[in-house]
């Protein structure tokens, strides 16, 4: 349980600064420090056991399906990292409290730092690969926030994004790798994975796993060629750099490699890739560190270089090399953090980080100077600093390796070269900052000379502590570092780790000589630094970051191009695609059809059918061909509509025929209304090829649909129809089975249908709101509108028809259950009769006489239907259960009442309301606009 508290403490710690920021900077910093220090205490409490070689674990099942557990562990490696993260982290938090400018949002900053710390601690402690990945990605996100903390600066934004993208991409690759590992092992638990090294290496995916995992690790650790994000990340506030690039973020990659060494290591591939990448990174970065002018840039490149060194050591893979690697992780963290902090101080005090502008600072800021000298010497690998120890070990290991076969001999030489460069840039840092005179350009000379002094103690203390630490470790390695390092390397390489003696003096041996050579050569190189820089300037630097940014930009551009090409905003294309897809899919189905004509015999033709077919074909093709003569097209459409209803008559569907007819009329009116507002004869704009394409598509889909239909028509099926025919009278109380289905068997569909209708009414209402309209002054031929506003004869006929139509609709409604008819058709008849009034007499006149709110009519219709359905609950039956009965009244005789009729009444009202809502609203819009037109 204590283990769980460590990340939890830091997580909750992230909240502390948010709430304490209003109490002042100092209080906030101190309060924030509580959590990591407590966590550190918890870690230290576990330390003795861990140092004895124990592995402490804690598991809480989280998502067993995924193999993800909330599993934490502390072993040597974790201990090392936890101490670095929490220890150095606390120091940096303290430092940050002094570093930030007074007006900056320290609460947010510290919160981000704490979040990041949580993520890091999580990586170090994860006892489950997936959990590790979760935290891994979290570090990417939080580092994005930290690097971009000064988001108003464009370099900060760029740096942050680059870091996120590169490490995020690495993280995604890592995920793939980890999943593959998990599959090879059968578990994501760290213990099992680490123990299953052989299984993984034997897996056929091993190279892939390795590539993916290493990609993740290399991007995180800024290994060549993914190093470029790190220098750009220097746009962050210095405490961030100090934390991220000394002890944490970049170390995560190294940590991962170290952590997975038992699982993935011990293979040729591993050794070669690690050592080659490590070497290349080490050299490349060291060279750039020497040329860099920005102080933080120098440190960034040196970080990269040192990470390369560690990678190389891990690649060499021998027990001692691993010890060296672990030791160097520790060493690098201490001196690099100190260096970053001092650079931060210099930046803070002088306002610049340009190494050429700075110089001779010793007299002004001696304490800072001391700090830099101590830490810088450690970085250069001077005795008696800790850097020296690990470097000696590296030299030693480089001499005994044989990873590269015949080329292995090159390694010591290259390592020495790197060491030389490292000495050179370390010395450059110390020398040019504190002792040499600034190399100023003319304009810079014109500016007043820099004035600086050592900052407050709070800002100095953490750095000094760390610098002193690196000296102390160098002096007393056995006491201060050996147990930890041993425990850590034990964790890295299983139980074969030799207990190592660390000491400053190894005697006169080859590594010592190599060190000496490196120091001397380093000095020489430094003297030639100017010249080297000039030489380097001859070759225009192809900065990888530029390449990367250009690549991202190009990808985005390409993406934009492609997207615009695909989504050209043309509905015609989208529809063509829909048609094409449908065609392809149905084609697949039809391709399996053996014979088109099924077993059912064909019925004979007669003249009426031929006529009907001819009419429909004529209408359909006619309206397609005349689509530019819109009114004609509409008339043709009307022919189709009429013929469809005749077809329904012919094939025994009277209800459908009636519905179709009345819907036809209403649709017609609607379309004519539309015609008024749309251009009547638009130009032909499309190409012949487009027309041909459309024709082909249309014909193909038409053909396919016809084939489907034909195949269906000629086949027998047993449908559920018989049931309806049988149950209609006893169960539904009506002889018109279609109507009984509509209001009873499938009344729910009908409820949905009238909902749709009502919705359509409301939706059109919405659309017509505040609509501006185009209104022609004359018709197609250029003739002004007639002045006969309301033709008299029409008005009289409308007047006569209204009561008759109402009577008919009542009749149709009442007979619906037993004979063709029903609420729907009745509703449409009523609606049409009313619309005729509107047409004959105009909106205002009719409105005055019919003060009904159509939405209310429609909604109440729907409400009646629902209420009818609900009523069945009272009797304990499901929604919409119908009831009917035959009653006998004297004088009137027998008659039938059914709840379905009430439902049908709802349908009727909804239809009337919705239809009128749609048409009248549209009509009303024109009424509002018409007067303007009349004026002229």
């Amino acid at each position, binding site marked *: 349980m204590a283990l769980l508290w460590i990340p939890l403490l830091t997580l909750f710690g992230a909240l502390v600064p948010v709430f304490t920021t209003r109490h002042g900077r100092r209080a906030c910093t101190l309060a924030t420090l509580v959590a990591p220090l407590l966590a550190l205490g918890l870690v230290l409490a576990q330390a003795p056991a861990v140092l004895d070689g124990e592995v402490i674990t804690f598991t809480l099942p989280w998502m067993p399906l995924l193999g993800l557990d909330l599993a934490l562990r502390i072993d040597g490696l974790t201990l090392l990292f936890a101490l670095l993260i929490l220890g150095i982290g606390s120091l940096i938090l303290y430092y940050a409290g002094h570093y930030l400018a007074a007006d900056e949002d320290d609460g947010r900053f510290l919160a981000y730092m704490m979040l990041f710390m949580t993520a890091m601690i999580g990586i170090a402690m994860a006892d489950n690969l997936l959990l590790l990945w979760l935290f891994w990605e979290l570090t990417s996100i939080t580092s994005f926030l930290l690097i971009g903390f000064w988001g108003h600066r464009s370099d900060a934004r760029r740096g942050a994004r680059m870091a996120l993208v590169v490490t995020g991409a690495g993280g995604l690759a890592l995920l793939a790798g980890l999943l593959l590992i998990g599959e090879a092992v059968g578990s994501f638990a760290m213990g099992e994975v680490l123990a299953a090294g052989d299984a993984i290496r034997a897996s056929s995916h091993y190279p892939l796993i390795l590539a993916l995992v290493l990609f993740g690790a290399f991007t995180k650790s800024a290994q060549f060629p993914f190093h470029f994000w790190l220098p750009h990340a220097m746009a962050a506030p210095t405490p961030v750099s100090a934390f991220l690039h000394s002890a944490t973020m970049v170390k995560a990659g190294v940590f991962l490699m170290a952590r997975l060494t038992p699982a993935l290591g011990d293979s040729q591939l591993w050794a070669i890739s690690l050592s080659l990448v490590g070497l290349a990174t080490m050299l490349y970065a060291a060279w750039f560190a020497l040329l860099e002018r920005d102080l933080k840039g120098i440190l960034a490149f040196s970080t990269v270089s040192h990470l390369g060194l560690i990678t190389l050591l891990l690649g060499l893979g021998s027990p001692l090399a691993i010890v060296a690697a672990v030791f160097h992780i520790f060493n690098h963290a201490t001196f690099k953090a100190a260096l970053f902090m001092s650079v931060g101080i210099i930046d803070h005090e002088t306002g610049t980080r340009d190494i050429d502008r700075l110089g001779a600072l010793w007299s002004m800021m001696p304490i800072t100077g001391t700090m830099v000298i101590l830490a810088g010497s450690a970085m250069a690998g001077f005795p008696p600093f800790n850097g020296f120890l690990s470097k000696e070990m590296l030299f030693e290991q480089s001499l005994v390796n044989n990873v590269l076969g015949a080329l292995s001999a090159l390694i010591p030489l290259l390592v020495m070269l790197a060491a030389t460069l490292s000495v050179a840039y370390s010395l450059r840092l110390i020398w040019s900052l504190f002792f040499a005179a600034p190399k100023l350009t003319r304009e810079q000379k014109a500016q007043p000379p820099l004035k600086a002094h050592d900052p407050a103690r709070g800002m100095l203390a953490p750095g000094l502590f760390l610098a002193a630490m690196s000296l102390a470790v160098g002096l007393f390695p056995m006491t201060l570092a050996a147990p930890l390092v041993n425990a850590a390397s034990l964790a890295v390489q299983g139980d074969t780790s030799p207990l190592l003696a660390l000491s400053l003096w190894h005697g006169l041996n080859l590594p010592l000589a190599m060190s000496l050579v490196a120091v001397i050569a380093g000095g020489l190189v430094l003297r030639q630094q100017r010249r080297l820089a000039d030489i380097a300037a001859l070759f225009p630097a192809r900065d990888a970051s530029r390449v990367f940014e250009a690549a991202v930009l190009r990808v985005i551009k390409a993406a934009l191009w492609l997207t615009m090409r695909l989504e050209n905003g043309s509905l015609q294309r989208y529809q063509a695609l829909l048609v094409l897809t449908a065609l392809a899919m149905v084609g697949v189905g039809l391709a399996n059809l053996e014979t088109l004509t099924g077993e059912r015999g064909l019925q004979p033709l007669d003249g009426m059918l031929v006529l009907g077919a001819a009419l429909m074909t004529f209408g359909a093709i006619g309206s397609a061909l005349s689509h530019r003569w819109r009114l004609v097209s509409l008339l043709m459409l009307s022919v189709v509509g009429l013929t469809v209803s005749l077809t329904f008559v012919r094939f025994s569907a009277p209800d459908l025929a009636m519905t179709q007819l009345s819907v036809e009329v209403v649709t017609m009116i609607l379309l004519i209304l539309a015609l008024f507002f749309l251009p009547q004869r638009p130009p032909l704009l499309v190409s012949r090829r487009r027309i041909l394409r459309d024709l082909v598509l249309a014909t193909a889909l038409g053909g396919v649909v016809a084939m489907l239909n034909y195949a269906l028509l000629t086949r027998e099926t047993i449908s559920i129809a018989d049931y309806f025919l049988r149950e209609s009278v006893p169960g539904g109380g009506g002889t018109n089975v279609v109507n009984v289905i509509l209001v009873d068997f499938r009344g729910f569909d009908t409820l949905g249908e009238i909902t749709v209708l009502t919705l359509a009414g409301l939706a059109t209402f919405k659309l017509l709101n505040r609509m501006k309209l185009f209104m022609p002054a004359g018709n197609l031929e250029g003739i002004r509108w007639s002045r006969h506003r309301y033709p008299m004869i029409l008005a009289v006929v409308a007047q006569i028809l209204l009561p008759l139509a109402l009577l008919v609709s009542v009749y149709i409604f009442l007979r619906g259950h037993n004979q063709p008819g029903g609420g729907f058709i009745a509703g449409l*008849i009523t609606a049409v009769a009313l619309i005729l009034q509107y047409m004959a007499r105009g909106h205002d006149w009719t409105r005055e006489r019919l003060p009904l709110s159509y939405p209310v009519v429609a909604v109440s219709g729907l409400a009646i239907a629902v209420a009818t359905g609900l009523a069945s609950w009272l009797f304990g039956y499901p929604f919409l259960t119908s009831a009917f009965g035959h009653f006998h009244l004297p004088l009137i005789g027998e008659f039938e009442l059914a709840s379905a009729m009430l439902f049908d009444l709802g349908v009727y009202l909804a239809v009337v309301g919705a239809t009128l809502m749609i048409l009248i609203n549209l009509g009303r819009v024109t009424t509002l606009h018409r007067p303007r037109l009349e004026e002229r």
Partner: protein
Amino acid sequence: MLDTALMISLALIVLALAMNVYRLAIGPDIPDRLLALDTMYVNSIALIVLLGLWLNTKTYFEAAILIAMLGFVSTMAICRYLLRGDIIE
């Protein structure tokens, strides 16, 4: 006899419909086409009634009523459109 008469009548109506369609197709003006369409509506009443006679049923009779009652509404609408532009003022 009745059957023959029915068939003759049907044939005549079918021919009438065909002629309507022809007029609808050739125009030349919108009112001509409209007239043709309206005549089609009226003729189809006859068609439905004859079908009813043929099948000896009155099930489809209401469809004929509907055509008689509503068919002219769309013709009116188009007339109004041609005369006044918008059909509901």
